[in-house]
């Protein structure tokens, strides 16, 4: 059943049909905006983006550039389990695993690349990570590069954490903590 909405358009009165008065009213509106903005350009809502950073609000803060969390000794929390690479719908994560020589229980990523040019900022990698090792809370908005290679985040660039961030807390670090503790490096 198609619903029909009946619109009661008022017929134009004489002043509106002459049209000039309405034109003058329209021009008055645009002229007011023109002069208001001409004499007060600071009042414009435009943000000059790259020079003028925007404070991210709400969940936008957790959809910014990725980072890899580190332990207090500077080693990545990532154990190269490939969960994020599997979860990634854009196939933008590339991991090559390696083993610690002195620690046979744990792997680490020898290569951890994220191609930001392909990333869709969905956050699935963060959801998938069992070690809480990847996060998207750097509040940097990727984009705007002169070359595609500039979009490629390597392990070294991903380990750029915010200051004061390395964490030893949490069950995910239990194995590592035990290992580090056994070596007396806690």
């Amino acid at each position: 059943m198609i619903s029909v909405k009946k619109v009661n358009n008022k017929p134009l009165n004489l002043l509106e049909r002459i049209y000039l008065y309405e034109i003058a009213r329209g021009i008055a509106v645009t002229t007011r905006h023109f002069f208001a903005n001409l004499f007060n350009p600071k009042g414009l809502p435009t943000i000059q983006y790259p020079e003028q950073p925007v404070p991210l609000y709400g969940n936008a803060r957790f959809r910014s550039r990725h980072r890899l969390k580190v332990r207090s000794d500077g080693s990545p929390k990532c154990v190269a389990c490939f969960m994020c690479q599997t979860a990634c719908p854009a196939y933008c994560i590339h991991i090559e695993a390696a083993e610690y020589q002195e620690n046979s229980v744990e792997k680490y990523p020898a290569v951890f690349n994220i191609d930001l040019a392909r990333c869709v900022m969905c956050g699935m990698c963060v959801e998938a990570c069992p070690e809480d090792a990847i996060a998207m809370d750097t509040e940097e908005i990727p984009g705007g590069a002169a070359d595609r290679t500039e979009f490629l985040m390597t392990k070294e660039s991903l380990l750029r954490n915010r200051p004061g961030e390395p964490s030893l807390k949490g069950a995910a670090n239990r194995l590592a903590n035990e290992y580090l503790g056994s070596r007396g490096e806690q």
Partner: protein
Amino acid sequence: MMEFFEANKDIILFTGVAAVKLAAFLGAVMGFAGIMTLAERKVSALMQDRVGPNRASVFGFAFNGLFQPAADGIKMILKEDFMPARAEKLLFTLAPFFALVPVLLLFAVIPFGDYFMASGYMVELQIADLPLGLFLILAVSGLAIYGVFLGGWASKNNFALLGAMRGAAQMVSYEVVLGLTLAGLMMIYGSASLQDMVRAQGRLLFGFVPAWGVVCQPFAFVLFLTAAIAENKRTPFDLVEGESEIIGYFMEYSSMRFATFMFAEFVEIILVAMLTATLFFGGWQVPYLYDTGFMFPGGALLPLGHHLVAALQVGAFAAKTVFFCWFLLIVRWTLPRFRFDQLMGLCWKALLPLSLLNILATGAVLTFLAR
């Protein structure tokens, strides 16, 4: 050699002065047209609460977008100059010139000042004071249709041809109104020379109101402005082009050929602004300013030197031109586009009868006053 100069002093002087006037006036117009391309984007941005172009910079100095016209020009020159394989090569090339040349020609008859005394010689501040300047304007602006139609026809593209048909129909229709609205002015001022009309607008009505065209013919002013915007093919009458939905006559044009059409449009804005200022707002006249200085209605006098008076008059003309250019931009960005039947209806059913009525009323009043 010296004898040659002595013998032909008048002709050489005349040619030299004319060349200087041409260079100065056309240079100013072309420069201003370049700035208009920026002004169009800036004005539209400001009235829509945007910033507009402000990124084109030279050595890091952007001056809020002042280099944008240069950047646009460089971009246009560097673009591929495409021509459809089946296009009429000669006409396709000629069409942009047909669009630009008539518009530039018309600046010859527009007076941008009264006169200027330089070491004993009187220099008329007008390139050519034709006794039938107004008719020349109507005749030559009619030629601009060729640019539109040749462009659409030579492209061998059906959409371009349709756009050209719309353009030709619109321009032919509004030309009639344009001519008829000016008839009232000719009746009042008794001359078709623009300089004479401007001088006549220096008189005072009732001792204190300047006899500007807008005072004598307010109705004709509204009709003229409407018809002039339609002649200019700008929104709300831009069905010729209609860049957002219907396709215009220059759809096959690219690079500087397209830019020439675009530039012609911007030069035409300046032309319409200058014509409006000249015919209806006293041209270079400043109210109460005469050859020797200000003479206010109360009897107060303020004598000024000749050079200051001439500078004031040229400045007044420039200010009026800038104002009307701004006004045309505001109108263009305020009003929505007409439908084509509304456009034709407005011309033939509203503007044409009204302009005829205006002539009738002007004639009646003039006859009554002459009695």
